Protein backbone atom coordinates (compact mmCIF):
# COMPACT_ATOMS: atom_id res chain seq x y z
CA UNK A 1 0.00 0.00 0.00
CA UNK A 2 1.35 3.30 -1.00
CA UNK A 3 0.92 6.37 1.07
CA UNK A 4 -0.75 9.29 -0.57
CA UNK A 5 1.99 11.78 -0.45
CA UNK A 6 0.71 15.28 -1.02
CA UNK A 7 -2.49 17.21 -0.81
CA UNK A 8 -4.75 16.12 -3.57
CA UNK A 9 -6.92 17.81 -6.17
CA UNK A 10 -9.35 15.85 -8.18
CA UNK A 11 -8.00 15.61 -11.65
CA UNK A 12 -10.42 13.14 -13.18
CA UNK A 13 -14.03 12.75 -12.24
CA UNK A 14 -16.34 10.09 -13.59
CA UNK A 15 -20.02 10.76 -13.01
CA UNK A 16 -22.84 8.33 -13.73
CA UNK A 17 -20.72 6.68 -16.31
CA UNK A 18 -22.05 3.76 -18.25
CA UNK A 19 -20.84 1.86 -21.26
CA UNK A 20 -23.30 -0.14 -23.25
CA UNK A 21 -22.70 -2.89 -25.76
CA UNK A 22 -25.57 -4.05 -27.92
CA UNK A 23 -27.80 -5.46 -25.27
CA UNK A 24 -26.00 -5.26 -21.96
CA UNK A 25 -24.13 -2.84 -19.79
CA UNK A 26 -20.39 -3.33 -19.59
CA UNK A 27 -20.27 -0.55 -17.00
CA UNK A 28 -23.08 1.00 -15.04
CA UNK A 29 -23.45 3.71 -12.46
CA UNK A 30 -19.75 4.41 -12.20
CA UNK A 31 -18.81 7.34 -10.01
CA UNK A 32 -15.14 7.75 -9.33
CA UNK A 33 -13.04 10.73 -8.45
CA UNK A 34 -9.36 10.37 -9.09
CA UNK A 35 -7.02 12.64 -7.22
CA UNK A 36 -3.54 13.61 -8.22
CA UNK A 37 -0.89 11.05 -7.25
CA UNK A 38 -3.46 8.43 -6.41
CA UNK A 39 -2.95 4.84 -7.45
CA UNK A 40 -6.39 3.44 -8.15
CA UNK A 41 -6.45 -0.33 -8.11
CA UNK A 42 -9.38 -1.82 -9.96
CA UNK A 43 -10.18 -5.37 -9.11
CA UNK A 44 -12.62 -7.86 -10.53
CA UNK A 45 -13.05 -11.18 -12.27
CA UNK A 46 -13.16 -11.50 -16.04
CA UNK A 47 -16.21 -9.87 -17.48
CA UNK A 48 -16.44 -7.39 -14.62
CA UNK A 49 -15.71 -4.47 -16.89
CA UNK A 50 -12.34 -3.48 -15.51
CA UNK A 51 -10.63 -3.36 -18.89
CA UNK A 52 -13.57 -1.42 -20.29
CA UNK A 53 -13.23 1.08 -17.47
CA UNK A 54 -9.54 1.45 -18.18
CA UNK A 55 -10.17 2.00 -21.88
CA UNK A 56 -12.95 4.46 -21.20
CA UNK A 57 -10.74 6.62 -19.04
CA UNK A 58 -8.06 6.45 -21.74
CA UNK A 59 -10.60 7.72 -24.21
CA UNK A 60 -10.91 4.78 -26.57
CA UNK A 61 -14.39 3.62 -25.58
CA UNK A 62 -17.73 5.31 -26.15
CA UNK A 63 -19.59 6.05 -22.97
CA UNK A 64 -22.68 7.69 -21.56
CA UNK A 65 -22.32 10.02 -18.64
CA UNK A 66 -19.64 12.44 -17.75
CA UNK A 67 -15.89 12.41 -17.52
CA UNK A 68 -14.33 15.62 -16.39
CA UNK A 69 -10.66 16.44 -16.56
CA UNK A 70 -9.27 19.21 -14.46
CA UNK A 71 -6.64 20.03 -17.02
CA UNK A 72 -5.12 18.71 -20.20
CA UNK A 73 -3.65 15.39 -19.19
CA UNK A 74 -1.21 13.10 -20.95
CA UNK A 75 -2.32 9.49 -20.84
CA UNK A 76 -0.23 6.43 -21.39
CA UNK A 77 -1.44 2.86 -21.60
CA UNK A 78 0.29 -0.44 -20.91
CA UNK A 79 -1.47 -3.51 -22.26
CA UNK A 80 -1.81 -6.97 -20.85
CA UNK A 81 -0.11 -8.98 -23.57
CA UNK A 82 3.35 -7.65 -24.39
CA UNK A 83 3.55 -9.80 -27.51
CA UNK A 84 0.57 -8.05 -28.99
CA UNK A 85 1.46 -4.57 -27.79
CA UNK A 86 4.87 -4.46 -29.42
CA UNK A 87 5.18 -4.41 -33.21
CA UNK A 88 7.10 -7.60 -34.07
CA UNK A 89 8.73 -5.91 -37.02
CA UNK A 90 10.11 -2.96 -35.05
CA UNK A 91 13.33 -2.73 -33.10
CA UNK A 92 13.02 -1.99 -29.40
CA UNK A 93 14.58 1.42 -29.87
CA UNK A 94 11.96 2.34 -32.49
CA UNK A 95 9.19 1.02 -30.27
CA UNK A 96 10.30 3.18 -27.37
CA UNK A 97 10.90 6.23 -29.52
CA UNK A 98 7.50 6.09 -31.21
CA UNK A 99 5.71 8.28 -28.66
CA UNK A 100 8.59 10.74 -28.71
CA UNK A 101 8.17 11.18 -32.44
CA UNK A 102 4.39 11.06 -32.60
CA UNK A 103 3.46 12.95 -29.45
CA UNK A 104 6.35 15.25 -28.85
CA UNK A 105 7.43 15.60 -32.46
CA UNK A 106 11.04 15.30 -31.46
CA UNK A 107 13.24 14.82 -34.49
CA UNK A 108 16.77 15.25 -33.22
CA UNK A 109 18.36 11.85 -33.10
CA UNK A 110 20.66 12.64 -30.18
CA UNK A 111 17.77 13.80 -28.03
CA UNK A 112 15.84 10.62 -28.81
CA UNK A 113 18.85 8.41 -28.11
CA UNK A 114 19.45 10.12 -24.75
CA UNK A 115 15.89 9.66 -23.64
CA UNK A 116 15.82 6.04 -24.73
CA UNK A 117 19.02 5.28 -22.86
CA UNK A 118 17.72 6.85 -19.68
CA UNK A 119 14.40 5.13 -19.73
CA UNK A 120 15.85 1.71 -20.62
CA UNK A 121 18.14 1.94 -17.60
CA UNK A 122 15.24 3.03 -15.42
CA UNK A 123 13.22 -0.09 -16.23
CA UNK A 124 16.18 -2.28 -15.43
CA UNK A 125 17.19 -3.42 -18.88
CA UNK A 126 20.59 -3.62 -20.44
CA UNK A 127 21.22 -1.00 -23.11
CA UNK A 128 21.99 -3.70 -25.68
CA UNK A 129 18.30 -4.50 -25.82
CA UNK A 130 17.50 -1.52 -27.99
CA UNK A 131 18.89 -3.23 -31.08
CA UNK A 132 16.76 -6.33 -30.63
CA UNK A 133 13.39 -7.40 -31.99
CA UNK A 134 10.53 -8.36 -29.65
CA UNK A 135 10.77 -12.04 -30.53
CA UNK A 136 14.34 -12.07 -29.29
CA UNK A 137 13.51 -11.07 -25.72
CA UNK A 138 11.55 -12.68 -22.88
CA UNK A 139 8.01 -11.83 -21.75
CA UNK A 140 9.21 -9.95 -18.72
CA UNK A 141 11.65 -7.94 -20.80
CA UNK A 142 8.92 -7.18 -23.33
CA UNK A 143 6.70 -5.81 -20.61
CA UNK A 144 9.55 -3.67 -19.35
CA UNK A 145 9.97 -2.31 -22.87
CA UNK A 146 6.25 -1.51 -22.88
CA UNK A 147 6.68 0.28 -19.57
CA UNK A 148 9.68 2.17 -20.90
CA UNK A 149 7.67 3.23 -23.93
CA UNK A 150 4.91 4.53 -21.73
CA UNK A 151 7.09 6.64 -19.44
CA UNK A 152 9.48 8.11 -21.98
CA UNK A 153 7.14 11.04 -22.59
CA UNK A 154 6.63 11.89 -18.94
CA UNK A 155 2.92 11.17 -18.81
CA UNK A 156 0.55 12.46 -16.16
CA UNK A 157 -1.62 9.35 -16.02
CA UNK A 158 -0.44 5.79 -16.43
CA UNK A 159 -3.09 3.14 -17.12
CA UNK A 160 -2.02 -0.44 -16.58
CA UNK A 161 -4.39 -3.12 -17.80
CA UNK A 162 -3.51 -6.44 -16.16
CA UNK A 163 0.10 -5.92 -17.02
CA UNK A 164 1.35 -8.76 -14.87
CA UNK A 165 -1.28 -11.35 -15.66
CA UNK A 166 0.56 -12.94 -18.55
CA UNK A 167 3.90 -13.19 -16.77
CA UNK A 168 5.50 -15.77 -14.50
CA UNK A 169 4.88 -15.27 -10.80
CA UNK A 170 8.48 -14.38 -10.05
CA UNK A 171 8.52 -11.80 -12.80
CA UNK A 172 5.22 -10.34 -11.62
CA UNK A 173 6.80 -9.24 -8.37
CA UNK A 174 9.67 -7.60 -10.19
CA UNK A 175 7.33 -5.64 -12.41
CA UNK A 176 5.25 -4.47 -9.49
CA UNK A 177 8.36 -3.25 -7.74
CA UNK A 178 9.46 -1.50 -10.89
CA UNK A 179 6.15 0.27 -11.10
CA UNK A 180 6.43 1.34 -7.51
CA UNK A 181 9.87 2.82 -8.17
CA UNK A 182 8.63 4.65 -11.21
CA UNK A 183 5.71 6.02 -9.27
CA UNK A 184 7.95 7.28 -6.54
CA UNK A 185 10.41 8.94 -8.90
CA UNK A 186 7.88 10.67 -11.10
CA UNK A 187 4.83 12.82 -10.69
CA UNK A 188 2.44 10.11 -11.80
CA UNK A 189 -1.12 9.17 -11.17
CA UNK A 190 -1.76 5.48 -11.84
CA UNK A 191 -4.75 3.34 -12.58
CA UNK A 192 -3.92 -0.28 -12.12
CA UNK A 193 -6.29 -3.03 -13.21
CA UNK A 194 -5.86 -6.58 -11.99
CA UNK A 195 -7.80 -9.61 -10.88
CA UNK A 196 -5.24 -10.16 -8.17
CA UNK A 197 -6.38 -8.13 -5.17
CA UNK A 198 -3.14 -8.61 -3.35
CA UNK A 199 -1.09 -7.11 -6.14
CA UNK A 200 -3.44 -4.17 -5.78
CA UNK A 201 -2.90 -4.05 -2.08
CA UNK A 202 0.80 -3.84 -2.70
CA UNK A 203 0.68 -0.98 -5.09
CA UNK A 204 -2.56 0.98 -4.71
CA UNK A 205 -3.74 3.81 -2.55
CA UNK A 206 -7.40 3.21 -3.36
CA UNK A 207 -9.09 -0.02 -4.33
CA UNK A 208 -12.28 -0.35 -6.36
CA UNK A 209 -13.99 -3.71 -6.67
CA UNK A 210 -15.98 -4.26 -9.84
CA UNK A 211 -18.56 -6.90 -10.55
CA UNK A 212 -20.66 -7.17 -13.68
CA UNK A 213 -19.94 -3.58 -14.52
CA UNK A 214 -20.84 -2.07 -11.15
CA UNK A 215 -18.74 -0.89 -8.27
CA UNK A 216 -19.33 -3.14 -5.31
CA UNK A 217 -16.85 -1.61 -2.97
CA UNK A 218 -14.41 1.25 -3.01
CA UNK A 219 -12.18 2.85 -0.48
CA UNK A 220 -8.64 3.25 0.75
CA UNK A 221 -6.60 0.14 0.05
CA UNK A 222 -5.91 -0.48 3.69
CA UNK A 223 -9.55 -0.35 4.64
CA UNK A 224 -10.81 -2.50 1.84
CA UNK A 225 -8.31 -5.26 2.43
CA UNK A 226 -8.25 -5.26 6.22
CA UNK A 227 -11.91 -4.50 6.70
CA UNK A 228 -13.86 -5.58 3.65
CA UNK A 229 -17.56 -4.83 3.83
CA UNK A 230 -18.99 -6.40 0.70
CA UNK A 231 -19.35 -10.20 0.60
CA UNK A 232 -17.80 -10.31 -2.86
CA UNK A 233 -14.68 -8.54 -1.64
CA UNK A 234 -14.47 -11.06 1.15
CA UNK A 235 -14.58 -13.87 -1.41
CA UNK A 236 -11.77 -12.27 -3.40
CA UNK A 237 -9.62 -11.87 -0.33
CA UNK A 238 -10.29 -15.34 0.92
CA UNK A 239 -8.69 -16.79 -2.18
CA UNK A 240 -5.32 -16.64 -0.49
CA UNK A 241 -4.76 -17.76 3.04
CA UNK A 242 -2.59 -15.77 5.35
CA UNK A 243 -2.24 -15.69 9.07
CA UNK A 244 -2.92 -12.00 9.21
CA UNK A 245 -6.65 -12.10 9.34
CA UNK A 246 -9.44 -14.41 10.21
CA UNK A 247 -10.56 -16.97 7.75
CA UNK A 248 -14.12 -16.58 6.78
CA UNK A 249 -16.25 -19.51 5.99
CA UNK A 250 -17.52 -19.08 2.51
CA UNK A 251 -19.90 -21.33 0.71
CA UNK A 252 -20.55 -21.19 -2.96
CA UNK A 253 -24.14 -20.24 -3.39
CA UNK A 254 -26.63 -20.05 -6.19
CA UNK A 255 -29.66 -18.16 -5.05
CA UNK A 256 -32.79 -17.46 -6.96
CA UNK A 257 -33.56 -13.96 -5.92
CA UNK A 258 -35.89 -11.17 -6.74
CA UNK A 259 -33.53 -8.64 -5.31
CA UNK A 260 -32.19 -5.77 -7.35
CA UNK A 261 -28.82 -6.35 -5.74
CA UNK A 262 -26.53 -7.29 -8.54
CA UNK A 263 -24.60 -9.78 -6.45
CA UNK A 264 -27.52 -11.51 -4.83
CA UNK A 265 -27.48 -14.61 -6.93
CA UNK A 266 -24.03 -15.57 -5.69
CA UNK A 267 -24.08 -14.04 -2.26
CA UNK A 268 -23.50 -16.24 0.76
CA UNK A 269 -25.20 -13.89 3.18
CA UNK A 270 -28.28 -13.40 1.07
CA UNK A 271 -31.58 -13.40 2.86
CA UNK A 272 -35.02 -11.86 2.62
CA UNK A 273 -33.79 -8.49 3.77
CA UNK A 274 -31.85 -8.15 0.53
CA UNK A 275 -35.03 -8.23 -1.54
CA UNK A 276 -35.76 -4.67 -0.59
CA UNK A 277 -32.29 -3.40 -1.48
CA UNK A 278 -32.17 -0.63 -4.05
CA UNK A 279 -28.70 -1.61 -5.27
CA UNK A 280 -27.05 1.69 -4.38
CA UNK A 281 -23.66 2.48 -2.97
CA UNK A 282 -23.75 2.97 0.77
CA UNK A 283 -21.29 4.98 2.81
CA UNK A 284 -19.53 2.87 5.35
CA UNK A 285 -17.26 5.71 6.29
CA UNK A 286 -15.86 8.86 4.76
CA UNK A 287 -13.89 7.19 2.09
CA UNK A 288 -15.26 3.65 2.16
CA UNK A 289 -18.34 2.62 0.19
CA UNK A 290 -20.02 -0.72 -0.38
CA UNK A 291 -23.06 -1.79 -2.34
CA UNK A 292 -24.66 -4.02 0.24
CA UNK A 293 -27.60 -3.68 2.56
CA UNK A 294 -25.82 -5.47 5.35
CA UNK A 295 -23.33 -2.76 6.24
Amino acid at each position, binding site marked *: MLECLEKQNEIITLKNLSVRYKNFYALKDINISIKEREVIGICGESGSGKTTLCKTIAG*IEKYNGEIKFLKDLKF*EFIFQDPT*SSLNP*KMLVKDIISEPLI*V*RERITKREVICEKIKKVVAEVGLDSSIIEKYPHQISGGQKQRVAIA*RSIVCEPDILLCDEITSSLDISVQAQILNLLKDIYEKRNLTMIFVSHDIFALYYISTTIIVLYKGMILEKGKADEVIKNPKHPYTKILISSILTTERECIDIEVRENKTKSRCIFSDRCFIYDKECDSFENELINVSDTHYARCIKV
Partner: protein
Amino acid sequence: MNRPLSELIKKLWKNKKTKYGLIILTVYIALALFAPLIAKPYRQDNPYIVKQHSFSPIPQKPSLKAPFGTTQNQYDIFYAMVWGTRLIFKITIKVILISLLIGLVLGGVSGYYGGLIDEVIMRFTDIILSVPSLILAIFVSAVLGPGIEKVVIAISFVWWPAYARIFRSEILKIKSMDFIKYSQMIGAGIFWIFRKHIIPNAIYNVMILASLDIANIVIIASSLSFLGLGSPPGYADWGQIISLSRNWLISGLSSIEYSHIVLIPSVFIFLFVFSLNLITETLRDIFDPRLG
Protein backbone atom coordinates in the same frame (compact mmCIF):
# COMPACT_ATOMS: atom_id res chain seq x y z
CA MET B 1 14.55 -6.72 -44.87
CA ASN B 2 17.68 -7.67 -46.71
CA ARG B 3 18.66 -10.66 -44.65
CA PRO B 4 15.44 -12.61 -45.29
CA LEU B 5 15.81 -11.95 -49.02
CA SER B 6 19.33 -13.34 -49.28
CA GLU B 7 18.33 -16.30 -47.11
CA LEU B 8 15.49 -16.92 -49.50
CA ILE B 9 17.73 -16.93 -52.55
CA LYS B 10 20.09 -19.33 -50.81
CA LYS B 11 17.22 -21.70 -50.07
CA LEU B 12 16.06 -21.54 -53.66
CA TRP B 13 19.56 -22.20 -54.94
CA LYS B 14 19.87 -25.41 -52.93
CA ASN B 15 16.92 -27.01 -54.71
CA LYS B 16 18.18 -28.54 -57.94
CA LYS B 17 15.14 -27.82 -60.05
CA THR B 18 14.94 -24.28 -58.87
CA LYS B 19 18.63 -23.76 -59.49
CA TYR B 20 18.08 -24.43 -63.18
CA GLY B 21 15.07 -22.18 -63.09
CA LEU B 22 17.12 -19.35 -61.63
CA ILE B 23 19.88 -19.84 -64.20
CA ILE B 24 17.45 -19.77 -67.09
CA LEU B 25 15.68 -16.75 -65.68
CA THR B 26 18.99 -14.92 -65.34
CA VAL B 27 19.71 -15.58 -69.01
CA TYR B 28 16.40 -13.99 -69.94
CA ILE B 29 17.02 -11.04 -67.65
CA ALA B 30 20.38 -10.56 -69.35
CA LEU B 31 18.71 -10.71 -72.75
CA ALA B 32 16.26 -8.06 -71.70
CA LEU B 33 18.87 -5.77 -70.18
CA PHE B 34 21.40 -6.08 -72.99
CA ALA B 35 18.96 -6.22 -75.89
CA PRO B 36 20.43 -3.20 -77.66
CA LEU B 37 23.83 -4.88 -77.64
CA ILE B 38 22.65 -8.34 -78.59
CA ALA B 39 20.32 -7.30 -81.41
CA LYS B 40 21.13 -3.89 -82.72
CA PRO B 41 18.04 -1.69 -82.88
CA TYR B 42 16.55 -1.78 -86.33
CA ARG B 43 15.00 1.64 -86.09
CA GLN B 44 16.27 4.36 -83.88
CA ASP B 45 12.93 5.88 -83.01
CA ASN B 46 11.41 2.62 -81.81
CA PRO B 47 13.64 -0.40 -81.33
CA TYR B 48 10.64 -2.63 -80.81
CA ILE B 49 9.77 -2.61 -84.47
CA VAL B 50 11.05 -5.88 -85.78
CA LYS B 51 13.84 -6.01 -88.29
CA GLN B 52 12.64 -6.95 -91.69
CA HIS B 53 15.06 -8.32 -94.19
CA SER B 54 12.90 -7.81 -97.20
CA PHE B 55 9.24 -8.17 -97.99
CA SER B 56 8.98 -11.60 -99.51
CA PRO B 57 6.09 -13.50 -98.01
CA ILE B 58 7.92 -16.77 -97.58
CA PRO B 59 9.58 -17.52 -94.26
CA GLN B 60 13.29 -18.15 -94.37
CA LYS B 61 15.19 -20.87 -92.57
CA PRO B 62 17.80 -19.94 -90.00
CA SER B 63 20.96 -18.60 -91.60
CA LEU B 64 23.91 -16.44 -90.75
CA LYS B 65 21.94 -13.34 -91.50
CA ALA B 66 19.00 -14.44 -89.38
CA PRO B 67 20.04 -16.85 -86.63
CA PHE B 68 16.49 -17.99 -85.96
CA GLY B 69 15.19 -17.54 -89.44
CA THR B 70 12.31 -15.30 -90.41
CA THR B 71 8.54 -15.48 -90.50
CA GLN B 72 6.44 -14.53 -93.45
CA ASN B 73 7.16 -10.97 -94.56
CA GLN B 74 10.70 -11.50 -93.38
CA TYR B 75 10.44 -10.56 -89.74
CA ASP B 76 13.63 -11.62 -88.04
CA ILE B 77 12.71 -14.11 -85.36
CA PHE B 78 15.88 -13.66 -83.34
CA TYR B 79 15.35 -9.91 -83.14
CA ALA B 80 11.74 -10.40 -82.18
CA MET B 81 12.59 -12.86 -79.42
CA VAL B 82 15.30 -10.68 -77.90
CA TRP B 83 13.35 -7.46 -77.89
CA GLY B 84 10.22 -9.38 -77.01
CA THR B 85 11.91 -10.46 -73.80
CA ARG B 86 12.55 -6.86 -72.90
CA LEU B 87 9.00 -5.94 -73.80
CA ILE B 88 7.45 -8.67 -71.70
CA PHE B 89 9.55 -7.67 -68.71
CA LYS B 90 8.45 -4.08 -69.10
CA ILE B 91 4.80 -5.04 -69.35
CA THR B 92 4.96 -7.45 -66.42
CA ILE B 93 6.73 -5.03 -64.13
CA LYS B 94 4.32 -2.24 -64.99
CA VAL B 95 1.31 -4.47 -64.40
CA ILE B 96 2.58 -5.63 -61.03
CA LEU B 97 3.38 -2.11 -59.90
CA ILE B 98 0.02 -0.69 -60.95
CA SER B 99 -2.01 -3.60 -59.56
CA LEU B 100 -0.08 -3.48 -56.29
CA LEU B 101 -0.63 0.24 -55.99
CA ILE B 102 -4.38 0.01 -56.56
CA GLY B 103 -4.72 -3.21 -54.59
CA LEU B 104 -2.80 -1.97 -51.56
CA VAL B 105 -4.61 1.37 -51.42
CA LEU B 106 -8.10 -0.05 -51.86
CA GLY B 107 -7.40 -3.11 -49.75
CA GLY B 108 -5.84 -0.90 -47.11
CA VAL B 109 -8.76 1.49 -46.92
CA SER B 110 -11.16 -1.41 -46.96
CA GLY B 111 -9.40 -3.31 -44.18
CA TYR B 112 -8.54 -0.38 -41.94
CA TYR B 113 -11.79 1.52 -42.01
CA GLY B 114 -14.25 -1.31 -42.45
CA GLY B 115 -17.92 -0.47 -42.56
CA LEU B 116 -19.66 0.61 -45.73
CA ILE B 117 -16.55 1.39 -47.73
CA ASP B 118 -15.26 -2.09 -46.93
CA GLU B 119 -18.48 -3.71 -48.14
CA VAL B 120 -18.50 -1.69 -51.34
CA ILE B 121 -14.88 -2.40 -52.22
CA MET B 122 -15.23 -6.08 -51.39
CA ARG B 123 -18.34 -6.50 -53.56
CA PHE B 124 -16.43 -4.75 -56.33
CA THR B 125 -13.53 -7.19 -56.07
CA ASP B 126 -15.93 -10.13 -55.87
CA ILE B 127 -17.52 -9.15 -59.14
CA ILE B 128 -14.27 -8.62 -61.00
CA LEU B 129 -12.99 -11.94 -59.71
CA SER B 130 -16.14 -13.71 -60.86
CA VAL B 131 -15.33 -13.22 -64.53
CA PRO B 132 -12.41 -15.17 -66.04
CA SER B 133 -9.52 -12.73 -66.18
CA LEU B 134 -8.59 -13.25 -69.82
CA ILE B 135 -12.13 -12.57 -70.91
CA LEU B 136 -12.54 -9.44 -68.86
CA ALA B 137 -9.15 -8.26 -70.10
CA ILE B 138 -10.34 -8.79 -73.66
CA PHE B 139 -13.35 -6.64 -72.91
CA VAL B 140 -11.34 -3.82 -71.40
CA SER B 141 -8.88 -3.96 -74.30
CA ALA B 142 -11.76 -3.68 -76.75
CA VAL B 143 -13.00 -0.56 -75.01
CA LEU B 144 -9.61 1.06 -74.60
CA GLY B 145 -8.36 0.24 -78.05
CA PRO B 146 -5.07 -1.18 -79.28
CA GLY B 147 -1.69 -0.41 -77.81
CA ILE B 148 0.72 -1.70 -75.23
CA GLU B 149 -0.15 0.85 -72.58
CA LYS B 150 -3.81 -0.06 -72.96
CA VAL B 151 -2.99 -3.73 -72.49
CA VAL B 152 -1.10 -2.90 -69.31
CA ILE B 153 -4.15 -1.04 -68.00
CA ALA B 154 -6.48 -3.88 -69.02
CA ILE B 155 -4.45 -6.53 -67.23
CA SER B 156 -3.94 -4.34 -64.15
CA PHE B 157 -7.69 -3.81 -63.96
CA VAL B 158 -8.25 -7.53 -63.76
CA TRP B 159 -5.33 -8.19 -61.47
CA TRP B 160 -5.57 -5.75 -58.55
CA PRO B 161 -8.59 -7.35 -56.77
CA ALA B 162 -6.58 -10.38 -55.68
CA TYR B 163 -3.96 -8.18 -54.04
CA ALA B 164 -6.59 -6.01 -52.39
CA ARG B 165 -8.25 -9.02 -50.82
CA ILE B 166 -5.08 -10.52 -49.45
CA PHE B 167 -3.87 -7.21 -48.08
CA ARG B 168 -7.24 -6.57 -46.48
CA SER B 169 -7.32 -9.94 -44.76
CA GLU B 170 -3.82 -9.38 -43.43
CA ILE B 171 -4.87 -5.98 -42.13
CA LEU B 172 -7.87 -7.50 -40.38
CA LYS B 173 -5.52 -9.85 -38.58
CA ILE B 174 -3.33 -6.98 -37.47
CA LYS B 175 -5.98 -4.39 -36.72
CA SER B 176 -6.93 -5.96 -33.43
CA MET B 177 -3.37 -6.05 -32.16
CA ASP B 178 -2.57 -3.82 -29.23
CA PHE B 179 0.33 -2.00 -30.84
CA ILE B 180 -2.08 -0.54 -33.38
CA LYS B 181 -4.40 0.56 -30.60
CA TYR B 182 -1.45 2.12 -28.84
CA SER B 183 -0.45 4.17 -31.86
CA GLN B 184 -4.02 5.29 -32.35
CA MET B 185 -4.20 6.26 -28.71
CA ILE B 186 -1.13 8.45 -28.78
CA GLY B 187 -2.54 10.22 -31.78
CA ALA B 188 -0.61 8.79 -34.70
CA GLY B 189 -1.94 9.73 -38.11
CA ILE B 190 -3.08 7.14 -40.59
CA PHE B 191 0.02 7.45 -42.75
CA TRP B 192 2.26 6.78 -39.79
CA ILE B 193 0.25 3.75 -38.73
CA PHE B 194 0.28 2.34 -42.24
CA ARG B 195 3.93 3.03 -42.85
CA LYS B 196 5.34 1.82 -39.56
CA HIS B 197 2.89 -0.82 -38.44
CA ILE B 198 0.49 -2.14 -41.01
CA ILE B 199 2.60 -2.41 -44.13
CA PRO B 200 5.65 -4.10 -42.56
CA ASN B 201 3.40 -6.72 -41.06
CA ALA B 202 0.85 -7.20 -43.82
CA ILE B 203 2.93 -6.88 -46.94
CA TYR B 204 4.58 -10.27 -46.68
CA ASN B 205 1.76 -12.39 -48.05
CA VAL B 206 0.97 -9.86 -50.73
CA MET B 207 4.54 -10.01 -51.95
CA ILE B 208 4.40 -13.78 -52.05
CA LEU B 209 1.26 -13.66 -54.15
CA ALA B 210 2.83 -11.10 -56.45
CA SER B 211 5.88 -13.24 -57.06
CA LEU B 212 3.82 -16.36 -57.68
CA ASP B 213 1.81 -14.29 -60.11
CA ILE B 214 4.57 -13.21 -62.45
CA ALA B 215 4.23 -16.27 -64.68
CA ASN B 216 0.49 -15.77 -64.95
CA ILE B 217 0.90 -12.16 -65.99
CA VAL B 218 3.38 -13.19 -68.67
CA ILE B 219 0.89 -15.75 -69.96
CA ILE B 220 -2.06 -13.40 -70.04
CA ALA B 221 -0.02 -10.63 -71.66
CA SER B 222 1.30 -12.87 -74.39
CA SER B 223 -2.14 -14.42 -74.84
CA LEU B 224 -3.64 -11.01 -75.38
CA SER B 225 -1.05 -10.07 -77.95
CA PHE B 226 -1.48 -13.47 -79.60
CA LEU B 227 -5.15 -12.67 -79.95
CA GLY B 228 -4.22 -9.46 -81.66
CA LEU B 229 -5.01 -7.08 -78.86
CA GLY B 230 -1.89 -5.36 -77.85
CA SER B 231 1.07 -4.19 -79.75
CA PRO B 232 0.71 -2.82 -83.24
CA PRO B 233 1.66 -5.08 -86.16
CA GLY B 234 5.35 -5.52 -86.71
CA TYR B 235 6.22 -5.21 -83.05
CA ALA B 236 8.70 -7.45 -81.28
CA ASP B 237 6.08 -9.23 -79.26
CA TRP B 238 6.15 -12.95 -78.51
CA GLY B 239 2.42 -13.39 -78.87
CA GLN B 240 2.42 -11.61 -82.17
CA ILE B 241 5.15 -13.80 -83.62
CA ILE B 242 3.25 -16.91 -82.60
CA SER B 243 0.17 -15.41 -84.19
CA LEU B 244 2.05 -14.86 -87.44
CA SER B 245 3.31 -18.43 -87.34
CA ARG B 246 -0.18 -19.68 -86.79
CA ASN B 247 -1.48 -17.72 -89.76
CA TRP B 248 1.18 -19.26 -91.92
CA LEU B 249 0.27 -22.75 -90.72
CA ILE B 250 -3.43 -22.28 -91.30
CA SER B 251 -2.91 -20.85 -94.73
CA GLY B 252 -1.97 -24.35 -95.80
CA LEU B 253 1.31 -23.36 -97.41
CA SER B 254 3.25 -24.84 -94.58
CA SER B 255 5.26 -27.98 -94.40
CA ILE B 256 8.01 -29.41 -92.31
CA GLU B 257 10.43 -26.92 -93.81
CA TYR B 258 8.86 -24.05 -92.02
CA SER B 259 8.44 -25.64 -88.63
CA HIS B 260 11.09 -23.36 -87.20
CA ILE B 261 8.70 -20.44 -87.24
CA VAL B 262 6.58 -22.33 -84.74
CA LEU B 263 9.15 -24.28 -82.79
CA ILE B 264 11.66 -21.57 -82.07
CA PRO B 265 9.29 -18.98 -80.58
CA SER B 266 7.38 -21.71 -78.74
CA VAL B 267 10.49 -23.10 -77.10
CA PHE B 268 11.62 -19.58 -76.26
CA ILE B 269 8.37 -18.65 -74.55
CA PHE B 270 7.96 -22.01 -72.93
CA LEU B 271 11.43 -21.95 -71.36
CA PHE B 272 10.72 -18.58 -69.82
CA VAL B 273 7.42 -19.62 -68.28
CA PHE B 274 8.89 -22.95 -67.27
CA SER B 275 11.78 -21.35 -65.43
CA LEU B 276 9.36 -19.07 -63.58
CA ASN B 277 7.25 -22.06 -62.63
CA LEU B 278 10.22 -23.98 -61.29
CA ILE B 279 11.03 -21.08 -59.01
CA THR B 280 7.50 -20.40 -57.85
CA GLU B 281 6.87 -24.08 -57.13
CA THR B 282 9.63 -24.08 -54.58
CA LEU B 283 8.61 -20.65 -53.30
CA ARG B 284 5.18 -22.06 -52.66
CA ASP B 285 6.61 -24.97 -50.74
CA ILE B 286 8.71 -22.66 -48.62
CA PHE B 287 5.86 -20.37 -47.72
CA ASP B 288 3.01 -22.83 -47.56
CA PRO B 289 3.13 -23.64 -43.85
CA ARG B 290 3.20 -19.97 -43.07
CA LEU B 291 0.38 -19.01 -45.40
CA GLY B 292 -2.01 -20.81 -43.12
